[in-house]
C-alpha cells in the first residue's frame, strides 16, 4: 500500500510540477473569490446602467416626462431593477468571515463602497468593533464612513467613530473618524432664517467643533494618500472663500493634455464642476 502511494505521489509530482513551471503562482483562494465578487458586481451594475439608459431614451419614458406624468415616469424607473445589494452584501460578509484578518477586511471595504445596503452596513460595523479596531487597514473601510454612519444612525455611528479614535493605533483610521464626525456635526449646523440669538450661538459652537475636528483630521492625514480629501474642509475654509486668491489646479484635460488653471490668469474664468453622468 505504502509503495503504491509513494509511486502514485511521485507520479503526480512528476506530472504536476513541470506543468506549473514557468507559470505565475496560483492566486490565493480569497483573491479568486474577491476578483469574482468584483467582476460580478461590476457586470450587474453595467447591465443596470445600460437598461436605465435605454429606458431614458424610450418613447414611453420621454412621453411621461414631457407630460409631467411623474407617477408614470417613476413606475417606469422602478421597472429597471437595481442589482441586489443585500444579496451581494451577504456574500461579502460570508467571505469576510471565512478569511481572517486584513484579507477579510477588504471584502467589507468593497461592500461598504458599493452595495449601499443598510443591513450589510450594520453588519460591517459590528465586525469592525469585533475584529478590526486595531487594523492598519481600517482606514480603507472608514473612507466609506458615510455609508456606515447612515446605516447606524447618528448616535451609534458616532459611538463607533469614538471607539476608532480611542483605540486605533494608526493615524489614517483616526483621521477618517474625525473627518466623519466633523461632517455629521456640520450637517446638523444648518441655520434657519428666523433663528433666535440662542440658536445662532448654538450653531456657531457646532461649526467651531466641526472645524476643530476637520483641522485635527487634516493634520493626522498629512503625508497619507488621503491627505487631500481629509484636508478638504479645512482647505475650502482657508483657501476657497470669496475674496481669496484662487489656488491653482494642475491636471490634464479630457484629451490627456496637461494644463493649469493659472494658464488662464488675466481672464475672467468660470470653473464648472460638472459631468454628463
Amino acid at each position, binding site marked *: 500500500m505504502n509503495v503504491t502511494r509513494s509511486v502514485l505521489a511521485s507520479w503526480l509530482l512528476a506530472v504536476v510540477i513541470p506543468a506549473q513551471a514557468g507559470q505565475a503562482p496560483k492566486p490565493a483562494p480569497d483573491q479568486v473569490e474577491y476578483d469574482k465578487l468584483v467582476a460580478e458586481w461590476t457586470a450587474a451594475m453595467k447591465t443596470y446602467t445600460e437598461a436605465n439608459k435605454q429606458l431614458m431614451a424610450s418613447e414611453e419614458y420621454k412621453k411621461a416626462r414631457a407630460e409631467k406624468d411623474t407617477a408614470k415616469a417613476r413606475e417606469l424607473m422602478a421597472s429597471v431593477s437595481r442589482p441586489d445589494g443585500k444579496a451581494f452584501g451577504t456574500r461579502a460578509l460570508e467571505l469576510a468571515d471565512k478569511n481572517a484578518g486584513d484579507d477579510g477586511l477588504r471584502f467589507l471595504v468593497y461592500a461598504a463602497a458599493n452595495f449601499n445596503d443598510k443591513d450589510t452596513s450594520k453588519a460591517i460595523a459590528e465586525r469592525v468593533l469585533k475584529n478590526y479596531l486595531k487594523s492598519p487597514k481600517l482606514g480603507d473601510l472608514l473612507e466609506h464612513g458615510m455609508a456606515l454612519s447612515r446605516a447606524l444612525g447618528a448616535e451609534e455611528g458616532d459611538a463607533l467613530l469614538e471607539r476608532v479614535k480611542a483605540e486605533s493605533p494608526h493615524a489614517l483610521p483616526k483621521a477618517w473618524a474625525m473627518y466623519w464626525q466633523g461632517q455629521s456635526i456640520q450637517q446638523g449646523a444648518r441655520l434657519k432664517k428666523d433663528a433666535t440669538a440662542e440658536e445662532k450661538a448654538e450653531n456657531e459652537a457646532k461649526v467651531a467643533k466641526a472645524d476643530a475636528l476637520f483641522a485635527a483630521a487634516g493634520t493626522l492625514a498629512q503625508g497619507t494618500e488621503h491627505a487631500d480629501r481629509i484636508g478638504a474642509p479645512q*482647505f*475650502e475654509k482657508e483657501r476657497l472663500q470669496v475674496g481669496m486668491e484662487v489656488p491653482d489646479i494642475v491636471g490634464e484635460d479630457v484629451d490627456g493634455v496637461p494644463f493649469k488653471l493659472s494658464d488662464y490668469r488675466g481672464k*475672467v474664468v468660470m470653473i*464648472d464642476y*460638472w*459631468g*454628463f453622468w
Partner: protein
Amino acid sequence: MFPHERSLVERLKDKPFSLIGVNSDKEKDTYFSQVKENGISWRSFWNGPKGTGGPISAKWNVRGWPTLYVIDHKGVIRHKWLGNPGDETLDAAIDALLAEMQQDTKK
C-alpha cells in the same frame, strides 16, 4: 446648464472670458459620446476614473454638482455657487467682472 453655458461662451467669445470645466464622468467614453451633440466647446480638466470622487473635486471639497466658481482677472474668487444660480445671476456676475477688468486696464 449646458444650453445657457453654450450661449454664454458664444456671446463672450471675443471677450477675455474662459469657461473651464472639471469633468467628473467616470469614463471618458461618457464624455466623448455626448460632447458633440451637446455642443460643449470649452476645455475641461478630467477628474479621473473615480468620477465625482476624483482628486480635483476631492481637494476642493466639492459637495454638489454643479459647483461653480467665478474668478476675476486678478485671480480672486468673486463668486461661488453650489448648484446653478440661474442664467441671469450668472450673466450679471460675469458681465460685471468683465466691465471691472476693462476699467482696470484703462487706468
